[in-house]
């Protein structure tokens, strides 16, 4: 995470849909069950990401399956899938809540129950079912978080299985907030080249 990086990240106008609240979603991402997905605004979903809003709790009525806050980023080939379990003989999916300013790196699979604000998940991670990741935590690249794991606030986890490696600096929430906001402003549209 380089706070000083000003390099624009370009995307093509044709590929992305921008919503009223500034969410930018690639047409090449798979958004299943969009009516069950909430994006908080200024959140970016890039191409080849898969978000499974269709895996909903059984029963009638409207339900939120996956919610993401503001200034989130879901990178390529990520899979966001709600956790499931069989409880008292009843199979069910459970909702997944992701906070503000959360970046999820490429190729990571997330089945957490909740991910707090200002959380950074690296690339090639697996976040197991019902994992709870508290505010300002960091999951290093390539980490496997087993199901039901709790990652406390301000902690960095790494490895397989992911384990506590260090406490993050007190400035963590400010750093992540600046970085995620800056990333959104760096994510810029490139007009199609004239032929």
């Amino acid at each position, binding site marked *: 995470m*380089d*706070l*000083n990086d*000003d*390099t*624009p*990240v*370009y*995307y*093509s106008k044709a590929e992305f849909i921008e919503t009223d609240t500034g969410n930018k979603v690639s047409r090449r991402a798979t958004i299943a069950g969009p009516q069950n997905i909430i994006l908080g605004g200024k959140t970016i979903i*890039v*191409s080849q990401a898969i978000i499974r809003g269709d895996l909903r709790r059984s029963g009638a009525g409207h339900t939120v399956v996956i919610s993401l806050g*503001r200034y989130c980023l879901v*990178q*390529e080939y990520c899979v966001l899938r709600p956790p499931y*379990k*069989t*409880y*008292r003989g009843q*199979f069910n999916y459970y909702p997944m809540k992701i906070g503000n300013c959360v970046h999820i790196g*490429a190729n990571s699979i997330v089945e957490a129950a909740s991910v707090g604000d*200002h959380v950074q998940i690296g690339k090639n991670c697996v976040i*197991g*079912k*019902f994992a709870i990741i*508290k*505010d*300002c935590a960091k999951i290093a690249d390539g980490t*496997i978080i*087993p*199901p*039901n*794991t*709790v990652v*406390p*606030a*301000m*902690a960095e986890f790494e490895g*397989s*299985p992911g*384990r*506590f490696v260090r406490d993050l*600096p*007190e*400035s*963590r*929430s*400010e*750093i992540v907030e*600046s970085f995620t*906001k*800056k990333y959104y*402003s760096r994510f*810029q*549209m*490139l*007009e199609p*080249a004239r032929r």
Partner: protein
Amino acid sequence: MSAPTVKYHCPCGNADNVRTPPPPHLPSSAYSFHDLHELFFCEECDAVRCNRCVSVEVSGYYCPNCLFEVPSASVRAEKNRCARSCFMCPNCLNTLQLVSSDPPDPGDGRLSIPVGTVGESPFFLYCNHCRWDSTDVNITFEKATGLAAQLQKFEDAAPDTLEFDRLKEYFEPVLRASGATSSAVPSSAANSHHLHSTSITAAASAALARDIPGVSKYNPLGRSTRGKDKSSKKDDVPEYKTRLDVSTAYAAGGEQDVEFMRHLEEDRDVATLEQRWGASWASPVQASELRPLRVPLHSKRSKRCPQCTHILIKPEQKAQTVRYKIKLLAVNYLPNISLSLPHRQTAPPTDRRSLTKSTTGEDDDEANKAMQAGLTYPFHIAIKNPMYDPIQIRLSPQRMHVPQVTSDKEKGRRPPFAISLPTTSFQVAAFADEWGYDDEEDDELDYLDDDDIGHRPKKEREKPKAKTVGVLEKKGNVTVIGGEVVLGKEARGNVKFNMLVKYQYKLPEDQGDSPSKKPVVKDFEFYTVVDLGPVVAKEERRIDDF
């Protein structure tokens, strides 16, 4: 993180009369410089503080798994570990789940990870990472709650626990005695801990020295004073008698371990050092005999200035909140300096394929971006002012010291690179609330030209400007200045130099004590180390290109 980087100096590692940091090519440089985001600022002393010099106090304990906040009164009795229901897998150190002996799910073909604490006893602990389960070591539970308490009787009855309790009893009077003599010393947290452990060490080594003849030859507390205090210290400590003779205390050990090793077929049957590390001295050699350990507690910590003991960091009480009652971060006091190298900036991609790639991004070809020996490169320094007063700032690079080490031939060699920066001071405007930090449009970080937001390809902006060295841009509370590095033909390694940052600001009149009502001018300075990145020889570069 890739270059260019700027790190800030904390003078705590220096001798009292030295203000300058070590030269950047020395290994000690890395220990004196820190990321700005990891530094604190003491208003009282008007000085930077770092994690190496602050005093640390525990302000609360919690279990990192169940997040229970443990009252400090019970931490010691519970031996710093969770006394509720949290255990670590003895095999992979993951946290264990409690599962019931319910019949498995009727086969619907799905992988069933047993979860849930309702269901039938006996309960047991299960690792959903490596699939270890506690029935392997004959641990089951009748009730689904308070697991630690259910295992407490085994833990309390273990020979090593009993021995440890006995040792504590034995050392208690010794500690009390030495504590009385040393308590006059004012104690920061680090200090008292230090005194505490030295008195234990002293007592323990004295006892060891008496019991084991060879040990007295090694005295880490003062080799030179050997003989002098021979009588005094040793006799203060009464003789310690172990509860059990160690050779008979355990069924295993000795011959049996040898026998086990002889029939060993797979190395994973032997417990690894990591698996045994957290256990007591009696950890088994066989991996299959390892038992689960309670999860060690974590702590929230306050930090104090080492000079004036004012609090720099004070977290809110609740364990999982990330808010602080006091948080004096250097980033809110010192100018925030960041660097960029224009030659490293990429032009926008032209075709679709590379466009996709640019979103995952950052694996650029580093070698192609390295600077080449013998050339001159411009660089940009952006300075952001976090204070409500404008600052007048001056940057001065420290002259490179060329290590005069090797042969005569090398003597008088010219520095491998030269840095040019504006020699005059320049202003950075004050931080104002309307420039950001509110959640809405737009944000404080965006200090590019309006042209850059979107449409105009970067190429145009990269055209060499008439002015390379000097103030390039002022926008909001950010001023960007240009510098230049001239690389010698012999330049290799990273271009690293120390840079002194000196600045002045006026305190508003009402804050100054001066009777003449003139604004008070304050001065401040600190050192940074700048790393512009690696230099490659021309030939190397050519090889990389093809």
